[in-house]
Protein backbone atom coordinates (compact mmCIF):
# COMPACT_ATOMS: atom_id res chain seq x y z
CA UNK A 1 0.00 0.00 0.00
CA UNK A 2 1.60 3.25 -1.13
CA UNK A 3 -0.17 6.53 -1.74
CA UNK A 4 0.34 9.42 -4.08
CA UNK A 5 0.11 12.69 -2.16
CA UNK A 6 -0.45 15.96 -3.99
CA UNK A 7 0.42 19.39 -2.62
CA UNK A 8 -1.08 22.35 -4.49
CA UNK A 9 -0.50 25.34 -2.22
CA UNK A 10 2.52 27.50 -1.58
CA UNK A 11 4.18 26.45 1.68
CA UNK A 12 4.80 30.11 2.42
CA UNK A 13 1.07 30.78 2.52
CA UNK A 14 -0.52 27.53 3.74
CA UNK A 15 0.07 24.55 5.98
CA UNK A 16 -0.69 21.79 3.43
CA UNK A 17 2.95 20.84 2.83
CA UNK A 18 3.66 20.52 6.51
CA UNK A 19 0.63 18.28 7.06
CA UNK A 20 1.58 16.20 4.05
CA UNK A 21 5.10 15.65 5.27
CA UNK A 22 3.85 14.70 8.73
CA UNK A 23 1.66 12.01 7.21
CA UNK A 24 3.33 10.71 4.05
CA UNK A 25 4.69 7.28 4.98
CA UNK A 26 7.91 5.74 3.75
CA UNK A 27 7.64 4.64 0.15
CA UNK A 28 4.89 7.06 -0.82
CA UNK A 29 5.17 9.63 -3.58
CA UNK A 30 4.58 13.37 -3.31
CA UNK A 31 3.61 15.33 -6.42
CA UNK A 32 3.81 19.12 -6.29
CA UNK A 33 1.29 20.91 -8.50
CA UNK A 34 -0.09 24.44 -8.93
CA UNK A 35 1.34 26.83 -6.31
CA UNK A 36 2.70 23.80 -4.47
CA UNK A 37 5.75 23.78 -6.74
CA UNK A 38 7.22 26.75 -4.84
CA UNK A 39 8.14 24.29 -2.08
CA UNK A 40 10.89 22.93 -4.33
CA UNK A 41 12.84 26.16 -4.95
CA UNK A 42 16.41 25.66 -3.88
CA UNK A 43 17.42 28.26 -1.33
CA UNK A 44 13.85 28.96 -0.25
CA UNK A 45 12.80 28.41 3.34
CA UNK A 46 10.77 25.25 2.90
CA UNK A 47 13.09 23.40 0.55
CA UNK A 48 14.93 21.74 3.41
CA UNK A 49 11.66 20.27 4.71
CA UNK A 50 11.20 18.53 1.38
CA UNK A 51 14.86 17.52 1.09
CA UNK A 52 14.54 15.92 4.49
CA UNK A 53 11.61 13.80 3.22
CA UNK A 54 13.23 12.94 -0.11
CA UNK A 55 15.14 9.83 0.98
CA UNK A 56 11.96 8.12 2.14
CA UNK A 57 9.47 9.48 -0.44
CA UNK A 58 9.69 10.05 -4.19
CA UNK A 59 9.35 13.72 -5.10
CA UNK A 60 7.65 14.81 -8.34
CA UNK A 61 6.71 18.17 -9.83
CA UNK A 62 4.26 19.00 -12.61
CA UNK A 63 6.25 20.56 -15.46
CA UNK A 64 3.43 22.80 -16.69
CA UNK A 65 3.14 24.44 -13.27
CA UNK A 66 6.89 25.02 -13.02
CA UNK A 67 7.00 26.55 -16.49
CA UNK A 68 4.02 28.83 -15.90
CA UNK A 69 5.73 30.20 -12.81
CA UNK A 70 9.08 30.72 -14.51
CA UNK A 71 10.85 28.09 -12.42
CA UNK A 72 13.61 26.44 -14.42
CA UNK A 73 14.38 22.84 -13.39
CA UNK A 74 17.92 23.85 -12.42
CA UNK A 75 16.44 26.06 -9.67
CA UNK A 76 14.93 23.03 -7.93
CA UNK A 77 16.35 21.02 -5.07
CA UNK A 78 18.03 17.79 -6.10
CA UNK A 79 16.12 14.61 -6.80
CA UNK A 80 12.87 16.08 -8.13
CA UNK A 81 11.43 14.11 -11.04
CA UNK A 82 9.44 16.12 -13.57
CA UNK A 83 6.16 14.83 -14.98
CA UNK A 84 3.55 16.12 -17.41
CA UNK A 85 -0.21 15.49 -16.98
CA UNK A 86 0.24 12.00 -18.47
CA UNK A 87 2.85 11.35 -15.83
CA UNK A 88 0.42 12.59 -13.17
CA UNK A 89 -2.11 10.01 -14.42
CA UNK A 90 0.54 7.30 -14.45
CA UNK A 91 1.46 8.09 -10.85
CA UNK A 92 -2.20 7.90 -9.83
CA UNK A 93 -2.46 4.52 -11.54
CA UNK A 94 0.76 3.19 -10.02
CA UNK A 95 -0.21 4.05 -6.46
CA UNK A 96 -3.08 2.70 -4.39
CA UNK A 97 -4.83 6.02 -3.91
CA UNK A 98 -4.45 9.78 -4.14
CA UNK A 99 -4.46 12.09 -1.13
CA UNK A 100 -4.91 15.75 -2.10
CA UNK A 101 -3.64 18.09 0.62
CA UNK A 102 -6.04 20.92 -0.24
Amino acid at each position, binding site marked *: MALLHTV*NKSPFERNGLESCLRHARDGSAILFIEDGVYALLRGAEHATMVEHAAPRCSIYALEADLAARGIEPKRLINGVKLVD*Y*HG*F*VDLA*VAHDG*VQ*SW*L
Partner: protein
Amino acid sequence: MKFAVVVNEGPYQHQAVDTAFNFSSAVLERGHQIDRVFFYHDGVNTATRLAVPPQDDRNITRKWSELAAQHGLDLVVCVAAAQRRGIIDADERRRHGKDADNLAPGFRISGLGQLIETAIDADRVVVFGD
Protein backbone atom coordinates in the same frame (compact mmCIF):
# COMPACT_ATOMS: atom_id res chain seq x y z
CA MET B 1 -8.56 1.96 -15.07
CA LYS B 2 -11.63 3.99 -14.01
CA PHE B 3 -11.22 7.46 -12.49
CA ALA B 4 -13.62 9.64 -10.55
CA VAL B 5 -12.69 13.33 -10.56
CA VAL B 6 -13.99 15.82 -7.99
CA VAL B 7 -13.82 19.60 -8.49
CA ASN B 8 -14.28 21.78 -5.39
CA GLU B 9 -13.61 25.28 -6.75
CA GLY B 10 -15.12 27.47 -9.43
CA PRO B 11 -13.57 28.66 -12.69
CA TYR B 12 -10.95 31.45 -12.96
CA GLN B 13 -10.65 32.18 -9.22
CA HIS B 14 -8.68 28.97 -8.55
CA GLN B 15 -6.57 26.78 -10.78
CA ALA B 16 -8.27 23.62 -9.48
CA VAL B 17 -10.74 23.27 -12.34
CA ASP B 18 -7.99 23.85 -14.93
CA THR B 19 -5.82 21.19 -13.35
CA ALA B 20 -8.81 18.85 -13.18
CA PHE B 21 -9.44 19.44 -16.88
CA ASN B 22 -5.84 18.80 -17.91
CA PHE B 23 -5.74 15.72 -15.68
CA SER B 24 -9.01 14.37 -17.09
CA SER B 25 -7.83 14.89 -20.66
CA ALA B 26 -4.64 13.02 -19.84
CA VAL B 27 -6.61 10.17 -18.27
CA LEU B 28 -8.47 9.73 -21.54
CA GLU B 29 -5.33 10.12 -23.66
CA ARG B 30 -3.69 7.42 -21.59
CA GLY B 31 -6.51 5.06 -22.50
CA HIS B 32 -8.20 5.08 -19.11
CA GLN B 33 -11.82 5.94 -18.36
CA ILE B 34 -13.47 8.80 -16.51
CA ASP B 35 -16.37 7.29 -14.61
CA ARG B 36 -17.72 10.71 -13.64
CA VAL B 37 -16.65 14.26 -12.90
CA PHE B 38 -18.42 15.59 -9.84
CA PHE B 39 -18.62 19.37 -9.32
CA TYR B 40 -19.08 20.28 -5.67
CA HIS B 41 -18.88 23.46 -3.56
CA ASP B 42 -17.98 26.42 -5.85
CA GLY B 43 -17.06 23.83 -8.47
CA VAL B 44 -20.69 24.02 -9.57
CA ASN B 45 -20.03 27.51 -10.95
CA THR B 46 -18.11 25.82 -13.77
CA ALA B 47 -21.44 24.73 -15.23
CA THR B 48 -22.87 28.07 -16.36
CA ARG B 49 -23.48 28.68 -20.04
CA LEU B 50 -23.68 32.46 -19.53
CA ALA B 51 -19.95 33.15 -19.19
CA VAL B 52 -18.19 35.29 -21.81
CA PRO B 53 -14.48 35.14 -20.99
CA PRO B 54 -12.11 37.50 -22.83
CA GLN B 55 -11.04 36.38 -26.31
CA ASP B 56 -7.45 35.88 -25.19
CA ASP B 57 -8.38 33.69 -22.22
CA ARG B 58 -9.59 30.10 -22.05
CA ASN B 59 -13.31 29.29 -21.90
CA ILE B 60 -13.26 26.74 -19.10
CA THR B 61 -16.91 25.73 -19.34
CA ARG B 62 -16.73 25.20 -23.09
CA LYS B 63 -13.60 23.05 -22.71
CA TRP B 64 -15.51 20.74 -20.36
CA SER B 65 -18.60 20.68 -22.57
CA GLU B 66 -16.48 19.73 -25.57
CA LEU B 67 -14.54 17.07 -23.70
CA ALA B 68 -17.84 15.62 -22.50
CA ALA B 69 -19.26 15.58 -26.02
CA GLN B 70 -16.17 13.91 -27.47
CA HIS B 71 -15.84 11.21 -24.84
CA GLY B 72 -19.33 10.83 -23.46
CA LEU B 73 -18.23 12.12 -20.07
CA ASP B 74 -20.72 12.29 -17.22
CA LEU B 75 -20.38 15.80 -15.73
CA VAL B 76 -22.52 15.99 -12.60
CA VAL B 77 -23.23 19.17 -10.66
CA CYS B 78 -24.27 18.74 -7.01
CA VAL B 79 -27.85 19.96 -6.73
CA ALA B 80 -27.60 21.31 -3.18
CA ALA B 81 -24.40 23.24 -3.88
CA ALA B 82 -25.82 24.46 -7.20
CA GLN B 83 -29.07 25.71 -5.68
CA ARG B 84 -27.14 27.77 -3.13
CA ARG B 85 -25.08 29.33 -5.91
CA GLY B 86 -27.64 29.87 -8.64
CA ILE B 87 -26.76 27.14 -11.14
CA ILE B 88 -30.05 25.67 -12.39
CA ASP B 89 -31.40 23.72 -15.32
CA ALA B 90 -34.84 23.97 -16.94
CA ASP B 91 -36.38 21.51 -14.47
CA GLU B 92 -35.08 23.43 -11.49
CA ARG B 93 -36.22 26.67 -13.08
CA ARG B 94 -39.79 25.43 -13.31
CA ARG B 95 -39.74 23.77 -9.90
CA HIS B 96 -38.56 26.93 -8.14
CA GLY B 97 -40.50 29.40 -10.26
CA LYS B 98 -37.40 31.12 -11.62
CA ASP B 99 -37.50 33.06 -14.90
CA ALA B 100 -34.24 31.74 -16.36
CA ASP B 101 -31.80 28.85 -16.21
CA ASN B 102 -28.10 28.71 -16.96
CA LEU B 103 -26.80 25.13 -17.04
CA ALA B 104 -24.24 24.55 -19.79
CA PRO B 105 -24.47 21.72 -22.34
CA GLY B 106 -22.98 18.43 -21.21
CA PHE B 107 -23.59 19.02 -17.51
CA ARG B 108 -26.41 17.54 -15.46
CA ILE B 109 -27.64 18.34 -11.97
CA SER B 110 -28.04 15.53 -9.47
CA GLY B 111 -27.56 14.58 -5.83
CA LEU B 112 -24.56 13.86 -3.65
CA GLY B 113 -25.34 10.18 -4.08
CA GLN B 114 -23.71 10.50 -7.50
CA LEU B 115 -20.43 11.34 -5.78
CA ILE B 116 -20.69 8.37 -3.44
CA GLU B 117 -21.64 6.10 -6.33
CA THR B 118 -18.72 7.07 -8.54
CA ALA B 119 -16.33 6.84 -5.59
CA ILE B 120 -17.53 3.26 -5.10
CA ASP B 121 -17.35 2.35 -8.77
CA ALA B 122 -14.06 4.01 -9.70
CA ASP B 123 -10.60 2.60 -9.14
CA ARG B 124 -9.23 6.00 -8.20
CA VAL B 125 -10.80 9.17 -6.83
CA VAL B 126 -8.85 12.39 -7.36
CA VAL B 127 -9.99 15.62 -5.72
CA PHE B 128 -9.03 19.07 -7.01
CA GLY B 129 -9.60 22.11 -4.84
CA ASP B 130 -8.23 25.16 -3.09
